[in-house]
């Protein structure tokens, strides 16, 4: 028999569902809390205390949290451990809120997408890479969001290897259905994230690029 969950946990689970695979830091008052499996992971990585609490009747839930001002200390540790971290903040002043405080994920920090000085290395670029495989041509794009550099290239498997070796991306995006192929092609040294297949489409990409750079055609891009 399933027991009723509290409104807070209901809100929490909603975000959890929206960002699958991410460790959710849930702002409650002055703390960022993690629940369940996330809490187990966080307590291990961060060395913070794991407690259990009876959560409004849903049975026991693991719980681990840290004060909000310690985010800069703990976030890099989670990201460096290879976690994708969704930061869920309070979007309104709790004093003024009626009922449940409105919350929202303000950032999803991943190893390849970070502005955080403590995650980044000063003299190294932090690249996010995406690889598309079409017949035997490899299309690669690299972005360092902390500097704004955005590069695109394509070529043979050897060329892809060469670029990966010299730019050392901290995260590589690859189509989900080709998950097994990636390991075969590039080994296990990369931090990967597998993206839905439909994203890897020419039309979709061209629209995205036009939208971002506000240009009429992708050809004018230097």
């Amino acid at each position: 028999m399933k027991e009723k969950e509290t409104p807070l946990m209901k809100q929490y689970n909603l975000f959890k569902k929206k960002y699958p695979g991410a460790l959710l830091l849930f702002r409650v008052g002055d703390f960022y809390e993690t629940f369940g499996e996330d809490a187990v992971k966080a307590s291990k990585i961060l060395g913070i205390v794991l407690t259990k609490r009876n959560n409004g009747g849903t049975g026991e839930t693991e719980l681990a949290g840290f004060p909000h001002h310690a985010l800069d200390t703990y976030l890099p540790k989670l990201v460096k451990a290879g976690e994708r971290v969704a930061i869920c903040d309070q979007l309104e002043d709790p004093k003024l809120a009626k009922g449940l405080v409105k919350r929202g994920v303000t950032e999803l920090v991943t190893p390849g997408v970070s502005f955080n000085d403590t995650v980044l290395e000063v003299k190294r670029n932090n690249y996010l890479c995406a690889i598309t495989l079409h017949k035997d041509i490899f299309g690669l794009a690299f972005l360092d969001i902390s500097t704004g550099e955005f590069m695109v290239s394509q070529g043979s498997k050897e060329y892809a290897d060469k670029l990966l070796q010299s730019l050392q991306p901290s995260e590589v995006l690859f189509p989900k259905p080709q998950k097994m192929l990636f390991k075969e092609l590039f080994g296990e040294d990369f931090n990967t994230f597998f993206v839905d297949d439909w994203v890897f489409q020419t039309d979709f990409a061209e629209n995205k690029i036009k939208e971002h750079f506000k240009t009429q055609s992708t050809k004018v891009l230097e």
Partner: protein
Amino acid sequence: MPVGIISAGVILYYLTETEHHQVSHISQLTRLEEERYVWLDKFTIRNLELLFPQQEKGVPLVDILDQTQTPMGGRLLRRWIALPLKEINKIEERLDLVDAFVANPEPLEVLREILGTIGDLERMVSKIASKRISPKELVLFKKALSQVEPIRKELSNMLSNLPQKTQNILQKFILNLQNSELVVDKIHSTLKDDAPLTSNQGKMIQRGINKELDELHELLNSGKEYLEKITEREIERTGINSLKIQFNKVFGYYLEVSNANKHKVPNDWTRKQTLTNAERYITEELKIYEEKILTAEEKIFGIEQILFQELVDFCATQITIAQQNAKVLAGLDVLVSFAKISHKFNYTRPQINDSDVLDIKAGRHPVIEQQLPIGESYIPNDVFLDTENQQIIIITGPNMAGKSALLRQTALIVLMAQIGCFVPAEKATIGIVDKIFTRVGASDNIAKGESTFMVEMTETASIMNNLSGKSLVLMDEIGRGTSTYDGISIAWSILEFLHNHPKAKAKTLFATHYHELNQLEHDLSRVKNYNVSVQEENNKIIFLRKLQRGGSEHSFGIHVAQMAGMPSAIVQRAGEVLSHLEKEKIHEELGEKVKEIPKQTQPVGQLTLFEPYNPEFEKLKKHLKQVDVNTLTPIEALIKLNELKKMIS
């Protein structure tokens, strides 16, 4: 780049997915064109230890070259090393500027000092665009941008001392620096220099920016004065000379009037409290004032935060300028760093041309020479390679004599020259190289279940399939991972292949243990034997580390085993076995047999088409397999035939 574009789209999609919406600093999508840069395969990048050491305590080339003063300079240097240039003009431009800085050590130091104060301008820009910058960092941003003018001045001052060609290049450089006065002034007039890390605690906005803010500060600072003013005015109006304004937590500010003066109190005062000998009143004006005081601080925080956001928004409209400056300064930083190390480590400017000659006089290994114990100096060596007489050098010599170092230093010198840096040599003439291949040492991949020999062969195969006429090939002990005869045979045929390749006379340094390969000098016209010299004294060997003409006879492997501390019983026994083998003439016999190997001096051209493992053949095979002869019309057959012919021509 249709396939690359898809990947770029995926990245933009991913940014949205991860809630990164303010990314206006991503202002350009740069095409990384393969053919513009020297081809370095992944093995070469790893083997030469360009960016990362292979062993834990190793030192990569970048650590030697990096004297950059800004983080963006350090990052650019890494990209330059990974992407060496092939265009002579571009390389010469960099070399000209490095030359200019080497020749002007004083401005060089001044520039280094200014660059040292700039910080990570590039990442500050990104934080502005994404609205993540703190007030303190925005002050640093201003300081960084305000260094642009002094740098421009310093560079302009250098102009007159330079040759005309360099002047033009530097002038172009200077023109690329954007005037950023507007944003500097705006930040300077808005933000206090000691602004804090957080934007919600005030103490960051200058006076004179916002009237309400100034009034609030006024209110806080001169509250007493303000109250005195009110007191004076009310005394004059009412004639109550003993009037006082006081404060308590219950009523806030109030006017206190002694009972004697009670009758003079005007109507617009409100009585709040009666004491035995006095009455307390409040007025509308006092209530407003009180409200102001009590909420002033909170309001100051709020207004300052809004003003700060407005300032960041304004800066965000100016980021293109800042980004451009960051780019130019990063380039300057790397060139200045090159000049600094060239001066410090005694490098010389290489002569770059598009010939096929590689001529290095007294070259050194840039990394090893910096790690020698004090007092020991690196033994320099000459290396000459061309496509006419000396295309392939076979280097024999004992273990530890420095064969591998020589191979690597040759590649590193070429690479450094083509990123626009001076080189560790007395003189270097470098015909542009378009690919550098290395098969140096054994990169063990045992953890992944591949044998060393398999890895070696995979890497070598990749080299053989990608040769070009302007390639530089370095091979270190190819074939040592298998039996002697297998090894010699493979090495032998690789050398023949390199020599007889119809299109690509790749310049090659080939280090080996197999003295038998020295026979090839007699068979192939562009192969030359060299050895790294050693002296044998009282059964001990001294490494002279000097490259000299001619083959060598011994490997001194047993000596090395002895030096390594192998139990003497083993060393002695090995000596016995060796002399026995030598007596049995196994060595000589092999030497004799080697001479009898049928010569292969013809170019390996068309004939190889139908040999196994030929990629062209594989492609043809694949195509032919797909053709269904039964459904083909004669015309289609002809078209197909034409297509196939095109594939091999």
